[in-house]
């Protein structure tokens, strides 16, 4: 079982350009998430989706957009990249469970993005 795949593994992007980070899961999880990981700041939630067709804003959503057309895919788009978006991006998924239920998240391997 592949679990969660992310593409690309890494990317160097010129400021002002757009880019879509891809995330696909094969576990049929309803909930999916995008995080960015920055030194000293841990993981911060960008956007999430509880089920196909719905999305929500996380802690740091500005400059990012997501869509959830189906259960398996949850792409993250940077419309006009800026250097502050240089980070490592992780996609994750889980069964949504009941509110606050202790379901486990599963993470992809990450995409390292550098915006110059």
């Amino acid at each position, binding site marked *: 079982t592949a679990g969660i795949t992310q593409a690309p593994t890494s990317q160097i992007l010129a400021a002002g350009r757009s880019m879509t980070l891809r995330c696909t899961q094969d576990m049929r999880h309803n909930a999916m998430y995008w995080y960015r990981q920055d030194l000293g700041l841990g993981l911060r939630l960008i956007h999430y989706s509880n089920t196909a067709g719905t999305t929500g804003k996380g802690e740091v959503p500005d400059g990012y957009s997501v869509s959830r057309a189906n259960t398996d895919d949850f792409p993250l788009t940077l419309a006009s990249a800026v250097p502050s978006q240089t980070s490592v991006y992780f996609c994750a998924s889980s069964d949504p469970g009941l509110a*606050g239920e202790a379901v*486990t998240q599963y993470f992809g391997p990450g995409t390292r993005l550098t915006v110059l």
Partner: protein
Amino acid sequence: AQSVAQPEDQVNVAEGNPLTVKCTYSVSGNPYLFWYVQYPNRGLQFLLKYITGDNLVKGSYGFEAEFNKSQTSFHLKKPSALVSDSALYFCAFREASGTYKYIFGTGTRLKVLA
């Protein structure tokens, strides 16, 4: 605001010695707490979680965590550290407000010295 805190950026321990990675929480209601581990250039992997019941939770790779309600802590422990345990460790909790969001600590880097 609800949060988890990891007060140590880095913990060094000699191989074979017990290790503790600290986590404290500020969460209303019953906290659902997690520990994840991240090896270099990898995504996070689940280690263990606390729901309710036994305050000592056993997880993967010989790790365990002790939930202490009076001290609002959920420290990660292992009786005998291995060099291969060297990694970045994250404490997290899940909001109980129906948003399904998880809040992560800033991470603690564990270095086990041979």
